[in-house]
Structures are given as structure tokens and as C-alpha cells.
């Protein structure tokens, strides 16, 4: 996986998902079965914040690893971590490391990820008192 291939993949992935509906069939084109946690995470996010956006702020690419710094934006329209829909808009900074690999069909997929979001900001924006 070259740096250029990784960069191109992440840009296609962000374009395909950000601000759009994220059905499992679409997500499966980009995320391998080995990262079931990411698939679940996207599904949970989509249910709570339909068509949420991931606005890329900065991208660092190093071979098969990518670090994407982003702003997560959406409207709280579904239950999220036990919090019923509030209708509030969120704009939360976050960062994700993706590890990419080619699957058996030589297609690039996300095989592993690590994520940090500003959960304090998220709680404040959803109106949850600390």
C-alpha cells in the first residue's frame, strides 16, 4: 500500500460517505469484515445523526496508515448512547487512525481503526450535564 494509494482511498471513502446515507452495502465497500467495530460505529452514528458529515481538516499518510483529523457534523435525530433525539446540531472535533490493506480481491479496505472524539464537547452540545 503506497502513500499515494492510501491517500486516494481515504479521499474516495470520505466523499462516498460524508453527508450521505450510509447503508451497510456501501460501508462494506470500504470497511473489511475484520473491522466489525467500525461498521457498527458507523451504523450507530447514522441511526442517531442521519447523513452525518465528516469534514476533513488534516490528513497525514504514512504507507498503509492514515490519520484523519475531522469535524463531525450532524443533527441528533435518533437515540444516541441512551440519549433520545434532541434535534440539536453537533460539530465535534475528532481524529481517526485507519490501517488499510488489500483484500483477497486486491481491493483496498479499512482493516483496523482507532478513534478519539471530543466527547466533552459532544456531551455539552447534546445538552447532557457532566
Amino acid at each position, binding site marked *: 500500500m503506497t502513500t499515494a494509494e492510501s491517500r486516494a482511498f481515504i479521499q474516495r471513502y470520505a466523499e462516498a460517505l460524508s453527508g450521505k446515507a450510509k447503508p451497510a452495502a456501501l460501508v462494506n465497500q470500504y470497511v473489511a469484515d475484520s473491522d466489525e467495530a467500525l461498521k457498527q460505529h458507523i451504523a450507530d452514528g447514522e441511526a442517531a445523526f442521519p447523513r452525518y458529515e465528516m469534514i476533513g481538516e488534516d490528513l*497525514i499518510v504514512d504507507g498503509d496508515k*492514515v490519520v484523519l483529523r475531522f469535524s463531525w457534523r450532524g443533527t441528533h435525530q435518533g437515540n444516541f448512547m441512551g440519549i433520545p433525539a434532541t434535534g440539536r446540531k453537533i460539530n465535534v472535533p475528532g481524529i481517526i487512525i485507519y490501517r488499510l490493506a488489500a483484500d483477497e480481491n486486491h481491493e483496498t479496505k479499512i482493516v483496523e481503526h482507532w478513534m478519539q472524539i471530543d466527547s466533552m464537547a459532544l*456531551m455539552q452540545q447534546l445538552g447532557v450535564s457532566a
Partner: protein
Amino acid sequence: MVHRKFLIGILFCVVLSLVSACQPIVAQPAQAIATTAANKEFVLRYFAALNKDKSAATVDAYMTDEVLKGHINFFEAVFPGYQLKAEEMIAEGDQVFVRTTFTGTHKGNLGDIAPTNKPVTFSIALTYRIENGKIVDHWMLADQLTMMQQIGVIPVD
């Protein structure tokens, strides 16, 4: 014989000049690798140095980023002698991302929260921009929620 050596000489010069013309294209990836490797080594040296002491003299040796100096002084007051460990580094150009583990003990006032003496271990996502051997800019996102839960300020649900 003389003609043959002359022709070989000319051929050698032509090949050499072609190789030299290619040099910049071949050298770029190697230079990029050298820079990112050097930056990763810098981060390890920097963490090791500050884990020993966070005096102004030590901090100044590694950065010109005044905001970062402020963060370091703040965390040091709340968690004196805190330690940073680089778990993973991803580097490109003049930037290094470091997935970092912060360990410390709550011995100083955190806002209006009096010292609890509780140990904390949490992740910090850090990106440094390194120029001329010093950190000139940074971006940071700490897992404050986990930190607050470990201090006991926020309940774990």
C-alpha cells in the same frame, strides 16, 4: 583501441549525466523517508527528556510553540511528574502524529477540583509540526472524559 576507449568514455559520460539528471527524482522519496524517520526519533527523545524534567530550559530546547508550553505547565501543575509514552507514530512531511498514553497522579487543583491523589491513565492524540529541530505547532485531543471518570468527577455508567 584508442577509438574504442574514447567511445566507452563518451558512453560513460552520457550515462553518468543521465543518472545525475535522474538524481532529484530518485532522491526525493529517500529524503522524505529520512525526514519522517528523524521526526519520529525527535519525538522519542523529546518525550524521554520531558519525562525526566519539565523545567523551562528543557521545554525550550524542544519547542517554540508557546501554547504547547502552556499546556505542559498546566498538566504538570495538576499531575506533577506526568509521563508520556508514544504508542504509535504516523509521519508525513513536517508532521508527526503520536498516539500517546498519559500517566500521572492527581496532586494539584484541577479548576475547582481539589487533589484526589487518584492515578490516571488516558489517551491523547497529538500532532506536532517540526521545523529546524523544534516543535513549532501542535494539535491535541485528550480523552478528558476518561480522565474525569478516573478522578471520580464524572460517574462511569
